Every structure is written in structure tokens, then in C-alpha cells.
């Protein structure tokens, strides 16, 4: 939101005198103006000169630019069918659980104890999506676990055609997965802003999937403590991811770890405030049997929670 001074160039009625009047009642920026009680403001304007009333009208028009346009249900449905479809993950268990896969435009969280398969699912999804769709997959790696060799293994397991064809596809697929090694939350914010601006301006830059492994290890150092800023930054990241996903038709997948809850159970990390941020939450559980672990739905926008199919990483 801009300060009122910055608006003077485009809106001549918002001049120094008007701004002086506004600062006397506590309005320094458009944001303050929006928060100010409208009736009180209009009362004050009654006694003000005509010129100020023009300035007020101009402020209203500026504020109009800030809200998103109205969309009706039919347009939303068309948008969902064309742009926000389901992407298969390449893992049968998850595709069955989610009745299709990860949805574009939504945030999916994979949560579970250590060594339960979260990174493997991220790598498998990256390889599958890069192979099936002609677009870029962005992989943010915070624990140096991104393994191109493992991705090649996944690709060679699932493809059937002749060997030379496989090799060419492998190179193309690997060239469309971009990996960022990020070790603190501010670098992540910088990178996401950069991505947002690139997506707005470059026409041929298509990203279908953004995978962050793991988001919780970046947020854990700032959460809690006296500074009090941790929650703000956590929610800022959440909303930035949501905006990226919705505006630019990306499916965002990230991992979270578990912490000890009451009575020996474990619960997802990052607390109560984070619970409302992801659209879909999948809980992985560790299993020592050769059949693999279980996964279940903790939260979904329209499916019933609690299903538990069996799940194995090849």
C-alpha cells in the first residue's frame, strides 16, 4: 500500500494541504485510509473545504484498484476445469487417496515422522510431473537431499520404450527440474518474490509444480521466542505460496515434520496457526514392515478424512 505522498503525481487533489489534513486525523497511507471509520471520516469532511472532498473521492477510486474483480460460479467452474486440474503424483497410494493427485492452485502438505518417505514422494512427484508435462518443476531443498540419481532411477523404472529414447527423455526431464538450495526463511521469501515477478512478466516461463522440502526446517528457527515476528513471517510465506498457486496455476507441495503431542502421540509441527494454511494435509506414518507405511488424510477441501491405503516407495 502506498503512502499518500506517492499518489500526488497521479492524483492532483491529494496535495500537501489534503495530506496535512489526513495526517492530523492519523491517515498516512492508503491502508490507514481503508481502516479508518467511514462515517467518522465523512463527518469530518462535512466541515472541510470542497477541495478536500475531491481528494477524498480520488482516494476512494485508488482503493477500488486494490480489490480483486468479482467472479461468478460459472467462471470459477470453467477455471477449475481448464486450469486447476489434478496432477498425478506417480505414487499409486497417494493418487488413490486423493482421487487423482495433487490439485493445481492448492497447497498440499506432507507431514510425518523422520524417514517416513516424504522426501521420496517429493522426488517421485518431481520426476513424474517433469516427465508428463512440458513445464518446469521448481524444487527447493533445505537439507541437501535432492538426488538427481534417484530421479533417474524413478524415470528408468517407469518408462517402457527403447533405451536411446529413454536417454533423451531423461536429459530433457532433468533439464526441466530446477533445484534451489535455500537455508533460511528470508532467502526463501526473496526467491518466491523473484518467482512471482518472473511469472508475471515472462510468457514462456511455465511452472506447474513447486516443491519445498522441507518448509518446517526453515520456519522452526524463527517460531516462538520473544521477538514475536515468527508467526507473521510464517503466515506471510503461507499467503505468498497461496497467491503463487492460485494466480499462476501451480501446485505447491511442501513437507512438515512432527513433534511430540500430548500423551506420547505426535502432531504436525508449526502449530495451530499453520493448520489453516495448506488445503490438503497428508500424514505419513513410519512402518518397519516391508510392505511400507501408511498414509492418511488429515485435511482436505472435499474428501472425507481418515482413509488409510497401504503405501510403498519402489
Amino acid at each position: 500500500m502506498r503512502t499518500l505522498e506517492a499518489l500526488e503525481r497521479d492524483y492532483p487533489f491529494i496535495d500537501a494541504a489534503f495530506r496535512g489534513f489526513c495526517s492530523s486525523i492519523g491517515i498516512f497511507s492508503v491502508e490507514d485510509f481503508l481502516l479508518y471509520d467511514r462515517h467518522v471520516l465523512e463527518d469530518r469532511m462535512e466541515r472541510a473545504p470542497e477541495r478536500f472532498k475531491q481528494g477524498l473521492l480520488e482516494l476512494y477510486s485508488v482503493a477500488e484498484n486494490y480489490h480483486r474483480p468479482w467472479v461468478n460460479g460459472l467462471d470459477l467452474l470453467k477455471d477449475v476445469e481448464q486450469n486447476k486440474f489434478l496432477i498425478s503424483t506417480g505414487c499409486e497410494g497417494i493418487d488413490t487417496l486423493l482421487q487423482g493427485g495433487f490439485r493445481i492452485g492448492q497447497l498440499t502438505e506432507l507431514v510425518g515422522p523422520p524417514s517416513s518417505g516424504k522426501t521420496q514422494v517429493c522426488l517421485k512427484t518431481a520426476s513424474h510431473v517433469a516427465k508428463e508435462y512440458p513445464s518446469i518443476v521448481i524444487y527447493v531443498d533445505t537439507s541437501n537431499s535432492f538426488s538427481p540419481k534417484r530421479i533417474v532411477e524413478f524415470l528408468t523404472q517407469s518408462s517402457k520404450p527403447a533405451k536411446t529414447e529413454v536417454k533423451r527423455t531423461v536429459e530433457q526431464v532433468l533439464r526441466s527440474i530446477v533445484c534451489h538450495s535455500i537455508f533460511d526463511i528470508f532467502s526463501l521469501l526473496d526467491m518466491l518474490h523473484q518467482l512471482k515477478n518472473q511469472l508475471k512478466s515472462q510468457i514462456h516461463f511455465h511452472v506447474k509444480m513447486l516443491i519445498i522440502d522441507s518448509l518446517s526446517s526453515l520456519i522452526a528457527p524463527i517460531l516462538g521466542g520473544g521477538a514475536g515476528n515468527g508467526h507473521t513471517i510464517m503466515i506471510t510465506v503461507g499467503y505468498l505460496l497461496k497467491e503463487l498457486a492460485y494466480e499462476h496455476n501451480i501446485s505447491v507441495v511442501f513437507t512438515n515434520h512432527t513433534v511430540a503431542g500430548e500423551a506420547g502421540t505426535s502432531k504436525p509441527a508449526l502449530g495451530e496457526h499453520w493448520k489453516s494454511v495448506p488445503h490438503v494435509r497428508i500424514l505419513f506414518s513410519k512402518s518397519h514392515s516391508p510392505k511400507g507405511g501408511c498414509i492418511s488424510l488429515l485435511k482436505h477441501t472435499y474428501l472425507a478424512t481418515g482413509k488409510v491405503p497401504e503405501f510403498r516407495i519402489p
Partner: protein
Amino acid sequence: MEVSSLPISASQRGKLISSGYTSISSLASVSADRLAQDLKISGNEALEILKIASRRLHKGETEASGCLGTRGGRTAWDMLHDEESSLCISTSCSELDGVLGGGIRCKEVTEIGGEPGIGKTQLGIQLAVNVQIPAEYGGIGGKAIYIDTEGSFMVERVSQMAEACAEDLIQYSNMLLKDNGSCQVKKQSRAFLDNIFHFRVCSYTEQIALVNHLEHFISEHKDVKIVIVDSITFQFRDDFDDMARRTRLLSTISLKLMKLAEKFNLAVVLLNQVTTKYCEGSFQFTLALGDSWAHACTNRIILYWNGKERCAYLDKSPHLPSASAAYAVTGRGIRSLRSNCKRVRLM
């Protein structure tokens, strides 16, 4: 308030918001002098704030950088070549090396935990010696940093292991390079000791300070290829009332070590202790420092007793299946269990 997502101090943030600079774009057009005047801070501080804000904004400026845009990222294809040619540090036990895919890998943080007396410090010292094996013998030829928080680093043991390693190297060169009369550089055990940098740490604040300093130290000693912390747990176990604070400190340390491993292409080995956990009706040994710490490393190896044998189990790895291997702690260091005969490790 967008400015709250900038890495600035709380007081600076408070001053920015109360003077009306709530968004990052509002900082784009203001000069440093004006900002210093409005916030009542020094000119240098204002310059710093503007630099941080411009980094956020300029990173948002577009550039025609080709179809794979995002600055700072590398494609998986480029990383594949790096991964295939990355070197491993052998543990001197061939079965354990097999489970680890060749040995301890560079660019990754490996956590090794186990009961007291299982051989963690021995393994740490063995790695500090083995990282120095020259490239002609299949090693990396690097130096080691050993951060000792418990005081269990025994120089006599290091020189014992170093001598055994030097003897093995000579035997190897004699066996395989029989016709080569001129002998290779004879590594003496003293040379091994010269290349291990030992830091003794006595409190958790010293530990944190040392981890912060490591980046500067390693940029001056570029041939350091392994950092061993023995153990990461000791200073954090008692004297902590605020568990949340401990989690925050530990996650910050682990991220810094990850960054070091990636930036300087070295291996980081963290030795951990065990604690008991009540799980499914019985008490079990698990690695200390809790669940949040378990996610902080790339690989995890758990050392345990199997009857009278020492075994190592690879619990977590991004590209290797879980497996276990037996090893032994001998007078010469860590060796395979089956080597009653003096078998030279083939590389």
C-alpha cells in the same frame, strides 16, 4: 505489513511501521538521508535497511535470463554430473562403506548416533584420518575439523590409527604397484595429525559461536573436507528449561551446517547420543534431541549392539535403501568384522 518479512531488527521494524513505511515499495523511492531523518537513526543504519529492501525488490526485477529463469537455481541435469563424480570418505570397513554407497558423502550432513561405548568417537577419529588419504589411493586428500564437546578426543589414539592407515597405504602401493620402484609419498602419522584442526568447546554458547565462525575459518582453509562434531548433544542436554528455545537454537545450527556443507562441498558428521522413549508399551532407545532434530540431517546412521557384534543401520538416506552392516573397533581403528587376517582395504 510487508516490512515485517525483512531480516531487520525488531526496533528498526517498529520505527519503520510507526513512521508509515509499512510496505517494501515505499522504501524504494526514499533516500537514505530522508529515512534517517524520519526514523531518527544514523545514516549507516538507514543505508543498511535500504540495501536489504532493494535486495528484495531487485530480486523481483525481471531479466531476460532464458527460459529457465530463476537465479540461484541449478537444473537437475547439471547436478547429476556433480553427484556422479562426488567423492566419498571411506570408513575403513568395507561392509559399512557398501551400505553407505561408498562412504560418507560430501555436501551432506550425516548424523551418527548410538549408545555409549559403541564406537562413535572411534568412527569420528577414523573419518578424520581417512579424509586425508591422498587421491592416488582413492581418497579425497583433505583436512579435517574436529569439534570436541565432550573431551573424548585422545591424541594417542589418533596417532595409533594414523600409523595403521599409513601402513595400509604402503602395503596397498606395494601390492598393486609392484613394478614401481620409486615409492609414493610416504605419509607419516605426524602428517596426519598436522591436518586435523581440533576445537574444544565447553558450553552451548561456545558451540554456537564456533559454528558461526566456521564459515570464515573454512574460507581460509579451503582444503578442509570434513567437519566432525563430537557430540552435538552434550552441551544441550541439561541446563535448558526452555525446550522451545533449544529447538530453535538447534535448527539454526543445523541450517548453518547444511549451508556450509553445500557451499564448500564438504562432509559434516554429527555424533549424537541416545535417550529412552516410551513407545508402544515399552521403553526404547532413540537418538537424543527430539523429533525436530531428526529432520535436520540428510543421512542418519544408528549404531547398535547385535549380541556381541557392533552394527550400523542406515536409517535415513535420500537415495539409498535402509540396510545394516557389522563393524569392529580394533587396535588399528574401525575395521570389518571378518578381518582376522590382515586384509588390505581395496579401493
